[in-house]
C-alpha cells in the first residue's frame, strides 16, 4: 500500500499556472473502494486496460487492489457520499496530476475514451448534468429530497442559469480548483442541512459545478454522449455490455425522454446486485 505524499513536499500545488499551451494535461483516475467495492474497482481497471486505457488508477482502499495505486482508506462514513470530497481534499490534492477523474467502482470501460478532459471546456470542474430542474412543472422526491426545494436552494445560493441535477459517479476536477470545489460543495451541503433539506454529495458537487462552469449547457450529459453515462434505468444486460460499442437509449429516471448515447465508460449501479453484468465485459 502506498502512502500519499505528506504535506510540505513540493507538488503541483506549488506551481502558479495552469498547464501551458501545447503541453498535455496530466490526469489520473481515482476512487475510494473498500469491502466489496474493491473487487468492482479491480474489474473497472481490468476493463480499462482491455480497452487500451493505461492511465493510473489511484484508489483509497482497505487492501491491495490489482492494477491500482493503493492508499489506506481507513474507516469512513458513507451515508451522504461526502467522503468523495474529503478524500479529494486530503488525499488527491497531494498527488502530482493536473486533473483527477473520479469513477465509482461499479464503472466499466467499453472503449478507450477519445478525450476524457474535453467536456471540461475551460471550466475547472465537470460533472455531467442530467436533469433540468428549472423545467420541472411539478415537484418530485429524489433521494429523499424535494426537487423544488433543491432547485430553490440552488437559486438562493447563486445559480443564475437553469438549475440542473446530477450524479457523482463520474466527475473531473482540476488540481488547483480542489479547495474551491470543496468549500463550495461543503458550504452548499451545510446550507441544505440548515434548511432541513437532505443533500448528498451529488447535489453538493452539482452546486459547485454550476457556480464554476459559466455555461451549464456545455456540461450536459447529452453534450458528450461518447464519454460516460450511468445505466440508472437498468437497461443494459450482459449481452449488451459484451457487445461494447453499441449505442443505447440513456434515460434518467426523472426524464421523460431518452437520449441515444454510446459512451466509452458506463456506470452500472445494478452491478452491485448482479456482479455478472460488470464481469461480463472481461
Amino acid at each position: 500500500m502506498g502512502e500519499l505524499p505528506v504535506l510540505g513536499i513540493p507538488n503541483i500545488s506549488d506551481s502558479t499556472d495552469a498547464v501551458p499551451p501545447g503541453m498535455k494535461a496530466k490526469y489520473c483516475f481515482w476512487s475510494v473502494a473498500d469491502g466489496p467495492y474493491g473487487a468492482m474497482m479491480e474489474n473497472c481497471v481490468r476493463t480499462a486496460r482491455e480497452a487500451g486505457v493505461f492511465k493510473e488508477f489511484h484508489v483509497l482502499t482497505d487492501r491491495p487492489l490489482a492494477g491500482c495505486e493503493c492508499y489506506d482508506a481507513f474507516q469512513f462514513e458513507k451515508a451522504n457520499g461526502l467522503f468523495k470530497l474529503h478524500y479529494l481534499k486530503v488525499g488527491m490534492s497531494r498527488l502530482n496530476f493536473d486533473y483527477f477523474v473520479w469513477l465509482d467502482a461499479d464503472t466499466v470501460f467499453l472503449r478507450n475514451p477519445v478525450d476524457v478532459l474535453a467536456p471540461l471546456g475551460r471550466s475547472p470542474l465537470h460533472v455531467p448534468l442530467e436533469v433540468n430542474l428549472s423545467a420541472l412543472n411539478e415537484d418530485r422526491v429524489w433521494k429523499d429530497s424535494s426537487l423544488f426545494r433543491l432547485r430553490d436552494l440552488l437559486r438562493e445560493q447563486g445559480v443564475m442559469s437553469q438549475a440542473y441535477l446530477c450524479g457523482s459517479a463520474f466527475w473531473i476536477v482540476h488540481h488547483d480548483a480542489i479547495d474551491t470545489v470543496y468549500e463550495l460543495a461543503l458550504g452548499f451541503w451545510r446550507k441544505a442541512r440548515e434548511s432541513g433539506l437532505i443533500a448528498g454529495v451529488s447535489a453538493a458537487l452539482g452546486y459547485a459545478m454550476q457556480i464554476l462552469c459559466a455555461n451549464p449547457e456545455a456540461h450536459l450529459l447529452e453534450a458528450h454522449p461518447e464519454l460516460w453515462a450511468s445505466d440508472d434505468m437498468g437497461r443494459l444486460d450482459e449481452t449488451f455490455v459484451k457487445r461494447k460499442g453499441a449505442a443505447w437509449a440513456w434515460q434518467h429516471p426523472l426524464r421523460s425522454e431518452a437520449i441515444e448515447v454510446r459512451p466509452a465508460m458506463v456506470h452500472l449501479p445494478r452491478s452491485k446486485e448482479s456482479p455478472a453484468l460488470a464481469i461480463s465485459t472481461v
Partner: protein
Amino acid sequence: MIETAENSNARAQLHLFGVPGLIGGAATKLAHLIRLLHHDFTITVVPLAAGVLKERDFKKQIEPFGVRGCLLRDLPKRLEGVGLAVCEKDFFTSGTAREAKARGLKLVWSNEMMFPFKGEAEAVKEGLIDRVLFVSEFQAKAFAEMYGGVPSFLTGNYIDPDDYAWRERQNPVFTLGRLSRADPTKYPLDFPVFYEELGLKEARYRVMAWTHDVQKQYRWHRFGPEWELLPEKKEPALKFLYSLDVFVYPLGHRIKESWGRAVVEAMLTGCVPVVPAGHQFHKLMVHGENGFICQEYRQWRETVRELYENYPLRQKISRQCAEHAREHLCNPEQHRRVWLEALSF
C-alpha cells in the same frame, strides 16, 4: 423648508469625515459630493489620519472648491452643523463618531456596504447617529432591524457626469472588460470561463483592479495573450473605460447587492453595460434600450455576440446609455435636492 445658500445669510456647516479621491466608491462619492454641494454648505473635510492633509491628490479634490481639510483635534471645541461619514471603516472604533457628536455635530452616516462596520451597532445603541443614509431599498431592508428608530433617508449615489464624457469607440479588436474594487468577491468564481465561453471569434479582455488575491482564485486557469489584467489604478478610470467596447459585469454568488457605480460610470462614457439580473441594475437601465440585463448565461452570450457583430446597435446603445445616465441617473440638480434634504435638520 431646506436651508440653502439661496435662502440663508450664512451657509450651513458640513463636515465630511473621510478622504475624497478618484479611486474607490466611497472616496469618489465624497469627491463628487464636494462638487455638488460646495455652493450650499461651508464644507470641511475631516480625514482620520493627519498624513492625508499634505497629499497632493487630496488637495486637488478640495481646494478648487474652497473646501478646507482639518483634523478633528484641530477644529473648535464646539462645532455646528452636520457631520457626514461615508463608509469610513474606522469612524466608530477610532472614537471619532463619539467625539464629533460630543462637540455638537448632527451625525449622518452612510454605510454603503451590506454589512455593519465594527462599532456601528454599538454607536446606534448609544444614540450617536442622528440619521442614516441608504443607497437602496435593499440595503435599507438589510439594516432595518439594526437601525429601528433612527431616521433614515435614501440618497442613492451621485456621480459627476462631467468626469465621464461620452466618446465614440470602435476598437480594431472587439474589447470587453470590467472595472471594480480590487476585491476577490467582486469577481464570480467562474470569471475567466465566463468571458472565454462567450464564443467570440476574436476579442480582447481588459480588466482593471486585478490583484494577487484575485488571481489566486483562478490558479486553475491559463490566461492567454487576449487577457490584459491591470492592477488597481494602472490607468485613470476614464481612459480604461474608453478602451472598452462593452462593459461585461458578471458578479457571482458572493455579492448580494451591487449598486453599480462602476456601471453608471461606464454608461456615461458610452461603454455599453451588460449586467446580471437583480441588484439595482433595473433602476439604472431599461434592458435593450440603454444597456442589457441578463439572467442566464445563454442570454449573456446572445447579447454580447449581438453587440460584437452589430456595430450600429452598439453605437446606438452607447449613445442612449450615456444620455440616460446623464439625464436621469446623474442629474446634478435632482441629486442636489435629495442631498440638501438628507442633510437638513
